[in-house]
């Protein structure tokens, strides 16, 4: 027998605002993604990479500490490597404003790449939890019958996906930056690396919103989970395969690859070639080591095809929004 009154009782409390209701949808979407063990594995790998990046920053910082035990290890290296490390340390000491920023920007470029791949994998795992299942189970009608609009639903689901991407991409990068600089020998490292941090926010933030809306659109294409996951993987991998084909046939085909387009934007924002050149000029041994980089590759990196990439991404985004407009409704 129930311990409380089981009759119907009226409720006259205050209602929460619309942003709290959207946050409820976001939390539920993220919870749905988190229930998949493979998603948890992917997030673990992302945070392992973050820890690695923080450790690299910590070790670079330790090189500036005079009596660091790290030098015992450096002394055991090959003479050429020792020279490289010492000239790098000299650069850090003489011109920290530039050297810290350049180093961290290059590290963000290096670690951001695998994190983006892992984010695309996490999205593939999350796609069924976004719109697909709601279409399949007709839960979309339940959402529509509540005090929500179509926009509330989309924003809520997007919030859940952004939360997931914050765990796999932006969060690990920011954590690595924060922990790496926190363990550095000087608080100035935070300030000197502000440009690198800004580049991360400028690139990863909009890229997350783009990927989130694109994934939502693909998730809404079908009520069949296998179909929407296949479309996402197809768009990702088949798009990649178009890049070499485009070199031999029609150049514009490469813009159909979302990773190629994101790469171009990343190159434009992080500008790794400029940073490599600064490093080459200041650390002669770096210049010697990197002189073997193919000139063609550097030229490609130095001149990203920003306009074409933005148009390509814009077309994909428009298609995703159109699908959402058509599909997010009760019937």
């Amino acid at each position, binding site marked *: 027998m129930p311990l409380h009154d089981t009759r*119907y009782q009226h409720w006259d409390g205050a209602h929460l605002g619309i942003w709290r209701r959207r946050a409820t949808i976001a939390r539920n979407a993220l919870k749905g993604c988190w229930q998949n063990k493979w998603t948890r594995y992917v997030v673990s790998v992302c945070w392992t990479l973050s820890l690695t990046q923080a450790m690299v920053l910590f070790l670079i910082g330790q090189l500036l500490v005079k009596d660091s035990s790290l030098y015992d290890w450096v002394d055991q290296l090959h003479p050429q490597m020792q020279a490289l490390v010492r000239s790098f340390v000299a650069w850090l000491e003489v011109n920290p404003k530039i050297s810290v920023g350049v180093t961290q920007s290059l590290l963000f470029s290096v670690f951001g790449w695998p994190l983006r791949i892992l984010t695309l994998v996490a999205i593939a795992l999350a796609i069924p939890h976004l719109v697909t299942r709601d279409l399949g189970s*007709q839960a979309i*009608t339940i959402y529509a019958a509540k005090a929500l609009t179509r926009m509330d639903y989309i924003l809520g689901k997007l919030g859940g996906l952004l939360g997931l991407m914050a765990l796999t991409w932006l969060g690990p990068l920011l954590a690595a930056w924060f922990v790496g600089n926190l363990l550095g020998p000087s608080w100035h490292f935070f300030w000197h690396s502000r440009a690198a941090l800004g580049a991360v926010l400028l690139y990863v933030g909009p890229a997350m919103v783009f990927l989130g809306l694109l994934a939502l659109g693909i998730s809404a294409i079908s009520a069949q989970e296998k179909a929407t996951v296949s479309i996402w993987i197809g768009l990702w991998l088949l798009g990649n395969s178009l890049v070499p084909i485009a070199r031999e046939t029609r150049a514009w085909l490469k813009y159909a690859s979302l990773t190629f387009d994101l790469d171009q934007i990343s190159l434009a924002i992080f500008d790794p070639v400029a940073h490599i050149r600064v490093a080459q000029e200041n650390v002669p041994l770096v210049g010697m080591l990197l002189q073997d980089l193919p000139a063609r590759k550097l030229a490609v990196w130095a001149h990203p095809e920003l306009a074409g990439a933005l148009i390509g991404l814009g077309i994909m985004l428009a298609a995703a929004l159109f699908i959402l407009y058509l599909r997010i409704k009760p019937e």
Partner: protein
Amino acid sequence: MFAAMSGVVIEARDLGKDYGRVKALDGVTLEVSPGTIGLLGPNGAGKTTFMKCLLQLIPFNRGSATLLGRDVGREGREIRRRVGYTPEQDGHIPGMVGCEYVTYCAQLCGLPFSAARQRAHEMLDFVGMGQERYRKIETYSTGMKQRLKLAQAIVHDPAIVFLDEPTNGLDPRGQVQMLELVQSLWRDHGITVVLSSHLLHDVDRICEQIVIIARGQVLVHDRLEALKARRPGSAEVVLASRQADLVQACGRRQWPAELLPNGHVRVEHRAADLNPLLRLLHEMDLSPIEIIPSPNALEELFVQALETAHAPA
């Protein structure tokens, strides 16, 4: 403050909805006062479309409508905050357990989490769900799913609730329990109920007002009592014996009467009340076990309305 208490909860003016060339709603105009409202019609008549238009789940093409005094076209979100809806299909979120689902639905309506969780358990108690609330919804029977749908529709304490075929798939006992629950919403708690069904018995049992829709048009809208009063008086008399005597006595008074296969005597006494029939039974010294007034009135009205609608102009 909503206008639920002011006398009209639903107002539609020339409401129209087209699916291509098909007119799902064709100039629906009506005013509905609070209570239990039965929305009747054959399959494909436009009942669900009418409800969905009122809830703004689908846009209408013509006319205007207000629900609880608010404009349906412009205040959809505010309206739905005070409205509950159980669709005909399941609509559950896969992977959730029952109480989690109802809590989530309450949160979507703006209840804070702690209040939502408490209300969810109260509503699951109200609809008669026990420990099965902690099981995944995919494992529920049809009856449990129907109860869960009702719980999610009323968890935020709506002023009006739309129920689309709520007894579908239930066994007779489950149907009775569900109808009693629905009936109590208005009778005991003042929540207006709009019950859409093609099952006349369900509507006859709990509804005070009847709206009959066919071919997207409202054919009949009145109180059930008034509708029954329009019909020539009839009753079913349940007797332990002497059924044939009663049939003969009715014949002498020019009242058509017949003995039904279940042993009841059906009498068309044509009076507004049962007094002439009771006098006859008294004169014959008969003690009926039960008298069922206007037993098939709603069914006859329904058929008559449909025939009128289908008749050539």
